[in-house]
C-alpha cells in the first residue's frame, strides 16, 4: 500500500516535473535516454569535484535538480585542486569523512571499491529502470564491481584519442591528408616523409602517456594494454604488445619520432605542445585537447582516427570516463543516488554538451550532436573522436601501476634506448609486484 502510494506520488511529481522541463525536451525533439526522478525526501549533501570549470557546469545542473526535482535539498559543492585531489580524498577517507557524492576516475576506482568505500548504485539503477548497457563498456566497465558486475558509478564524460595533424606540413610534403581507413604502414610512410631532420622537424609523436600514447597501439593488435582485465597479469611482455612497441621504437630509431628529453617531458601535453610548436607533424591526442587546439594553434590542422593495424584492421582508442560515485557511508544514500541519476540524465548532461570541450557520457544522439555542434564553426573533424568510441578499450590499471608504465616504460624505450624486451621485462616485474597474486 505504502509502496503504491509512493509510486503514485513519484509519477505525479514526475509529470509535474516533466511539464516544467518541457522547453528542454521540446528543443531536443527525441526521447530522453535517462529520465530524472523526483527525490523522495530532500536533505543535504556534500559533493566534491576537481575542476572549477566542471564545478560551474555541475553547479548549474544541480540548481536545476534542486528546483525541479528536489526542492529543499542542499548541496555543498566543493572544488578540490586536481593536483592534490586524490591525496585530499584519501586524507578525508582516513578520517572517515568521504564526501557524499564525488568524482572518481577509472584508474582510482579499484582502491575505493576494494575497500568498500563506494556505494553500490546498481539497486538504484534497477529501481529507476536505467539499463546500464546504454553506456559503452569502455565507459562503465571499469566501474563495475563484484560478482554480478554491479555498476557503482554514473559516467560523466568520455574521452577518446585521435591523431592531430598539421595540414600545412602535409601540403608542403605533397602528401594527401590521412583518412579514417589508413593503416600503420601509411602512418609510418607519412611520418617518414614529413620528417625534416635538417630543420629539427619530426614526423610523429605518439607514445606519451597511458591514454594518449602507446597503449592505443597495443590495443589495436587486440591485446589488452598493460594489465589484463582481471588485473592479474602484466600484458606488456606478451608478443603483440612487444610487436606494437617495436613498431613505435622503429620510428624513434629512424629519427622520425622525437625522444622524451627532446620534447622536454613524458606527458601527453609535452608531445602536444611540441606539435603546436610545429616541431612534429602528427601527434596523438585526446578529445579534451580540441578547445585548446582551436584556441591556440596557428597553422592549419585537423584530426583523423588513429591508423588501423594492418592485420587486425582495427583502430582502437583508449577511452576514459570520469564517474560520479557516492560514499558507502553517506547518511543520505537515496538522495545521493537521486542526484547522480539527475546528473547522468539527458537533462543534467545538457550542461556539459553545451559547454563544449567535455564530451558528455549520456549516449543520447541529441546530446552527442550538441557536443559536436559546439565546435561548429572550427571546421574540425571532431566526429573522429565519436567514431573512435565504436571500437575502444577501457582503462585497466590502478594507482601505482599508472605511473610506472606511463613514464618509466616510455623513458626507457624512447629516451634511454633500452631494448623493448628488456624494458617491458623490468616494468612488468614492477607491475606484477603490485598485482594481487
Amino acid at each position, binding site marked *: 500500500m505504502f509502496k503504491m502510494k509512493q509510486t503514485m506520488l513519484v509519477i505525479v511529481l514526475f509529470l509535474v516535473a516533466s511539464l516544467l522541463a518541457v522547453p528542454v525536451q521540446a528543443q531536443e525533439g527525441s526521447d530522453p535516454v535517462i529520465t530524472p526522478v523526483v527525490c523522495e525526501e530532500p536533505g543535504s549533501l556534500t559533493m566534491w569535484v576537481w575542476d572549477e570549470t566542471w564545478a560551474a557546469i555541475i553547479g548549474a545542473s544541480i540548481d536545476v535538480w534542486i528546483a525541479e526535482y528536489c526542492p529543499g535539498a542542499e548541496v555543498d559543492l566543493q572544488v578540490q585542486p586536481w593536483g592534490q585531489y586524490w591525496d585530499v580524498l*584519501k586524507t578525508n577517507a582516513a578520517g572517515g569523512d568521504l564526501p557524499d557524492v564525488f568524482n572518481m576516475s577509472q584508474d582510482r576506482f579499484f582502491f575505493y571499491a576494494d575497500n568498500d568505500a563506494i556505494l553500490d548504485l546498481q539497486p538504484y539503477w534497477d529501481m529507476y529502470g536505467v539499463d546500464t548497457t546504454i553506456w559503452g563498456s569502455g565507459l562503465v566497465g571499469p566501474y563495475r564491481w563484484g560478482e554480478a558486475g554491479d555498476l557503482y558509478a554514473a559516467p560523466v564524460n568520455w574521452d577518446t584519442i585521435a591523431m592531430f595533424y598539421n595540414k600545412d606540413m602535409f601540403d608542403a610534403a605533397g602528401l594527401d591528408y590521412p583518412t579514417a581507413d589508413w593503416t600503420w604502414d601509411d602512418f609510418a610512410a607519412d611520418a617518414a616523409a614529413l620528417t625534416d631532420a635538417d630543420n629539427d622537424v619530426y614526423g610523429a609523436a605518439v607514445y606519451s602517456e597511458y591514454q594518449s600514447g602507446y597503449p592505443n597501439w597495443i590495443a589495436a593488435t587486440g591485446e589488452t594494454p598493460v594489465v589484463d582485465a582481471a588485473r592479474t597479469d602484466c600484458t606488456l611482455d606478451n608478443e603483440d604488445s612487444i610487436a606494437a612497441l617495436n613498431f613505435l621504437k622503429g620510428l624513434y630509431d629512424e629519427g622520425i619520432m622525437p625522444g622524451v628529453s*627532446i620534447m622536454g617531458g613524458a606527458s601527453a601535453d609535452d608531445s602536444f605542445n611540441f606539435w603546436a610548436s610545429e616541431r612534429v607533424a602528427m601527434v596523438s591526442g585526446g578529445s579534451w585537447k580540441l578547445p585548446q587546439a582551436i584556441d591556440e594553434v596557428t597553422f592549419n590542422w585537423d584530426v583523423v582516427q588513429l591508423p588501423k593495424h594492418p592485420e587486425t584492421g582495427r583502430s582502437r582508442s583508449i577511452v576514459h570516463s570520469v564517474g560520479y560515485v557516492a560514499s558507502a557511508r553517506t547518511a543520505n544514500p537515496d538522495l545521493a543516488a537521486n542526484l547522480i541519476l539527475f546528473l547522468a540524465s539527458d537533462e543534467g548532461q545538457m550542461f556539459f554538451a553545451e559547454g563544449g570541450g567535455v564530451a558528455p557520457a549520456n549516449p543520447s544522439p541529441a546530446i552527442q550532436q550538441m557536443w559536436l555542434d559546439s565546435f561548429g564553426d572550427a571546421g574540425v573533424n571532431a566526429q573522429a573522436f565519436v567514431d573512435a568510441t565504436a571500437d575502444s578499450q577501457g582503462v585497466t590499471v590502478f594507482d601505482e601501476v599508472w605511473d610506472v608504465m606511463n613514464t618509466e616504460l616510455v623513458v626507457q624505450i624512447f629516451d634511454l634506448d633500452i631494448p623493448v624486451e628488456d624494458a617491458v621485462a623490468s616494468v612488468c616485474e614492477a607491475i606484477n609486484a603490485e598485482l594481487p597474486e
Partner: protein
Amino acid sequence: MTSTLLKFFGPTPLSRRKALWGMALVAPNVLGLFFFFGVPVLMAFITSFREWNAIKPARYVGFDNFERLATDPKFEQALTNTFKLIGLTVPIEMVLALGIAVLLNQPLRGRNWLRMAYFLPVVTSTVAASVVWTSIFQPRYGILSDLLAPVGLGETKWLVDPGLVLIPVGVVAIWQRLGFDMVLFLAGLQAIPGELYEAALIDGANRWQRFRNVTLPMLSPTTFLVVVLAIINGFQIFDQVYVMTLRTVPGGVGGSATTLTYFLYRRAFTNSEFGYASAVALVLFLLVLGVTVVQLVMQRYWVYYESDEG
C-alpha cells in the same frame, strides 16, 4: 617532600626563581607545539607498528614494517640518494650563502635589489621553477645545452639519466635554499660588534684575516643554526624532486631521484601503505635526531657564544 621538590628546581632561591620563570616562559610554545604537532607525530609513530591503508581498520603488526624496511632495496636507494644529496648540497649551499651574505653586507650601491634577487627563489612559484629548470636542463633546446654544446655535451639527458638526475635536483635545492640561508646569515652578521673589526684593523689584519678571525667565530651561532637547519631540510628534500622529475619519471627513472621523504609520500598516498610510510618517518626522525644530537654535542668545539648558556 617539599624540600625535595624545591631541590629539583634548583639549589638556591634565586635558581629556583629562575627555573620557575624559565618554565613559565617556555610553556606556551612548548605546550602548543606538543599538542598540535607532538600528538600527530605520536599518532604517526603508533601507525608505524600497524598495517593501515587509510580506509580499512588498522591492524597491529609489531615490527613487520621495520623488518620490511631493512630489506627493501627501494628504501635503501632512497636513503643513499638522500645522503648523496645532502653531501652535494649542504656544503655548497653553506659556502655560497655565507659568501653572498658577506658580499651583500658591504655598503654596495643597489644592494637592496641584489638581496631581493637572491631571496626571490624562496617566494617564486614552484610551477614556474619546474618549467624553467626543466627547460634549462632540456637537451638540445635548453640553455645549459647551448653552453655545453661546444664540448659535445649538448644532448646530455640530465633529467632521465639515473646517474645524473641528482645533479639538477641538487642544483634546484641549492637555488631555492640560498635566499633563506642568506637572510639568517645577514641577521647574524649584524650582531657582530663593529668595534671588533676596528680593533682588527688597528692590529693590521687584512681582509681575509678579519673574516677568518672576527667574522667566522662571531658568526658561529648563526652558522650552527644554518647547518642544523640545512641538514634537517636536506633529509626532507621533496619539492625539488617533485619539481624536477614531474615531467619525466616522477621520482626519477628506476627511483634514481627518489629521496626518503619522496619515498614516504609515495608509499603513503600512492600505495596507501600508511603504516609502512610511518615506519619510514620514524627511521628518518631517528636519523636526523642522531645527526642533530651529534651537532649539538660538537658545537662546543666550534660555536662561540658571547654569553654562556644561562
